[in-house]
């Protein structure tokens, strides 16, 4: 015994840490200084100069949206214009970039003609004095946006480890005439497209990431009840999947078994079911008389489902296991909390909650209901949150009035998950609702 103690003492005396140990296991809040310099236009042509400007502007807009980059204005760039074509990392004068405090910067060139142009684009690291992205894009002048989004994606991937979302789309419901139709656009509002022509009411689009198609519901003209449809954006083809006696309300894709969670009213009140690709019922998850259970949303690991229920009189957010067991209430503040969306990172749930002033605002909370955070303030209604596939952005609808939305119609906005950078991306003079960000 004595021996053991003395040995222990010996060990303790010699194991003093001769270093200052610090563990870092989360992301910080400081932005990364990034400079995007103009491309060298090798063909002196007005169309090509415009293409160059479009490319650079799109990359800037994309990266700015992420909210993690501090974009250094072009006028601050010190590199002489004569050096613009110098794309070899061994010959670039990195001091001119260090002096403007750019941690990373882009350079590149554009050549060819408007029908067949090619862009070389590079991202350099001031610290390692090395190129960290080298890309060549070719195509027509009408594909400049695509090239720019692709370059932005690669930049984000190399700096943050995760591909950007600049090539993703958002599906939503628009009201170009009196009817509500399924619509699609790029994540930033470009390439706006009214996809269907039901002439009734389409609702609840949700992406099927296995084949980049969509599920949604639309009122059937004969039964006047919303039924399940699928839509293939490539073929621009929409197809009815199911014909339940009651209504089909709200959809969420199950990432594990590739099923679809929805609420059916065939038993009198809305209950949550799991359906297969053909609209067949696989499992019933909730069973409560006279209680409405809707708005199911799967956790990214598919193990849990968050949903809305009025089982305790007010409309609140609950979660349960994917088999319907272990129901737990998550929201305790306010009288009307709805449309929960589980973040793709798995750590947060976004939802819309009605304020004391009777207007909806967007909130997030941890998946156990703690840490509720308000993201929108005093801007009329803010509803229907949906996460970008990387979980770094949120889209939602708001009927706030501004010079960009004088009519006060519901427009789609995107913002960071902390509520910063709320950016309007639709501008038509009619309502837009139920956005659903393409999942990957």
């Amino acid at each position, binding site marked *: 015994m004595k021996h053991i103690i003395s040995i222990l003492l010996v060990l303790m005396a010699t194991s*003093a840490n*001769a*270093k200052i140990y610090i563990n*870092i296991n989360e992301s910080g809040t*400081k932005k*990364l200084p990034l400079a995007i310099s103009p491309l060298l236009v090798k063909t002196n042509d007005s169309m090509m100069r415009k293409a160059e400007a479009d490319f650079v502007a799109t990359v800037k807009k994309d990266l700015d949206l992420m909210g*993690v980059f501090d974009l250094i204005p072009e006028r601050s760039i010190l590199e002489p214009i004569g050096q613009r074509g110098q794309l070899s990392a061994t010959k670039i004068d990195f001091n001119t970039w260090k002096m403007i405090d750019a941690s990373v910067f882009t350079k590149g060139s554009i050549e060819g003609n408007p029908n067949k142009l090619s862009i070389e684009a590079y991202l350099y*690291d001031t610290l390692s004095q090395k190129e960290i992205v080298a890309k060549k894009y070719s195509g027509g002048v009408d594909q400049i946006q695509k090239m720019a989004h692709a370059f932005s994606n690669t930049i984000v991937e190399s700096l943050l480890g995760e591909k950007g979302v600049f090539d993703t789309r958002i599906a939503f419901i628009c009201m170009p005439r009196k009817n509500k139709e399924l619509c699609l656009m790029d994540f930033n509002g470009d390439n706006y497209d009214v996809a269907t022509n039901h002439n009734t009411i389409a609702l609840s689009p949700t992406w099927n990431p296995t084949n980049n198609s969509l599920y949604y519901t639309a009122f059937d003209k004969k039964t006047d009840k919303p039924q399940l449809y699928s839509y293939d954006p490539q073929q621009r083809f929409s197809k009815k999947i199911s014909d339940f006696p009651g209504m089909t309300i709200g959809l969420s894709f199950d990432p594990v078994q590739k099923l679809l969670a929805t609420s059916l009213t065939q038993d009198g009140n809305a209950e949550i079911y799991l359906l297969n690709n053909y609209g067949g019922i696989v499992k019933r998850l909730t069973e409560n008389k006279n209680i409405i259970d809707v708005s199911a949303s799967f956790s990214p690991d598919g193990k849990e489902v968050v949903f809305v229920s009025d089982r305790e009189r007010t409309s609140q957010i609950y979660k349960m296991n994917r088999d319907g067991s272990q129901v737990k209430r998550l929201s305790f503040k306010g009288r009307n909390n709805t449309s929960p969306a589980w973040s793709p990172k798995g750590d947060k749930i976004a939802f819309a909650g009605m304020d004391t002033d009777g207007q909806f605002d967007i909130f997030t909370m941890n998946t156990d209901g703690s840490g509720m955070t308000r993201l929108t303030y005093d801007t009329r209604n803010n509803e229907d949150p949906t996460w970008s596939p990387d979980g770094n952005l949120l889209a939602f609808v708001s009927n706030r009035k501004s010079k960009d939305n004088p009519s006060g119609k519901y427009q789609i906005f995107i913002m960071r998950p902390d509520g910063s950078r709320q950016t309007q991306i639709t501008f038509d003079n009619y309502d837009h609702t139920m956005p659903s960000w393409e999942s990957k």
Partner: protein
Amino acid sequence: MLQNKISEPEAQAKTATFERSLVYSGLFHAALVLMVLGFNKFNVSIFKKPPMQATVMWAQSVKRPKPTIKDKLPPPLVPIKKAEEAPKKDEINVKKEPEVKTKEESAKDRMKKALEAMKSKVVPEDDRPAPKEDNFASAEENKEGMFSDTEVMAIQNSSEFGAYQALVKQTVNDNFIWYKTGNFSTIVHMKIDPQGNVTNVKIEKSSGDFGFDQAVLRAVQRSSPLPLPTTEKILKYVLHDYFEFEFERKN
């Protein structure tokens, strides 16, 4: 009653054996303690971890261009060679002799001068005089400005040091941006100079992911200069020892 039956010499012999075993055990432990103390001394004076040298600045895949003589001011990340030994006297004598220098030699001289300039910028910790300190605690005396293990332990366990550690952690953490989930772990060693500038950055253990390692290096470099401790003793210790940052991302 039974004990009474044991004869006196027998009893004496028993006590003697017991005493002897006590003495042996005492001697054994004394020897152990001496061994440990001696080892500690050796550890401090001879086997101490050699001061870090920034030989590899980046992930291994990155090749840095060699610094040219033209660079008047070395970029802050050029590997800083530590003063290993004072130049030998006879070498100096050789140097002093006037000679016709070829171009190459003069270039060499300029390199040497540049190196000296670099060295003078970084305070070599071995050059500092031994701190004169009245030590009221029973800890071993300081030698050559080193910190004994007990002192290091005392400093590292102090609340001021904890607060400083937290401040450094926050500063570096603020500059670390990485979004991808997954299992990553990179260990970086670095030192700071009396101005708080980050020096001798070295990747001790790579995560195997180039992007993650780069994000780590970016975070460390962007945090320079780091805040300095306000207590003199902790400042001394922080300048003397090295930092080990473990950047982790776990699913």
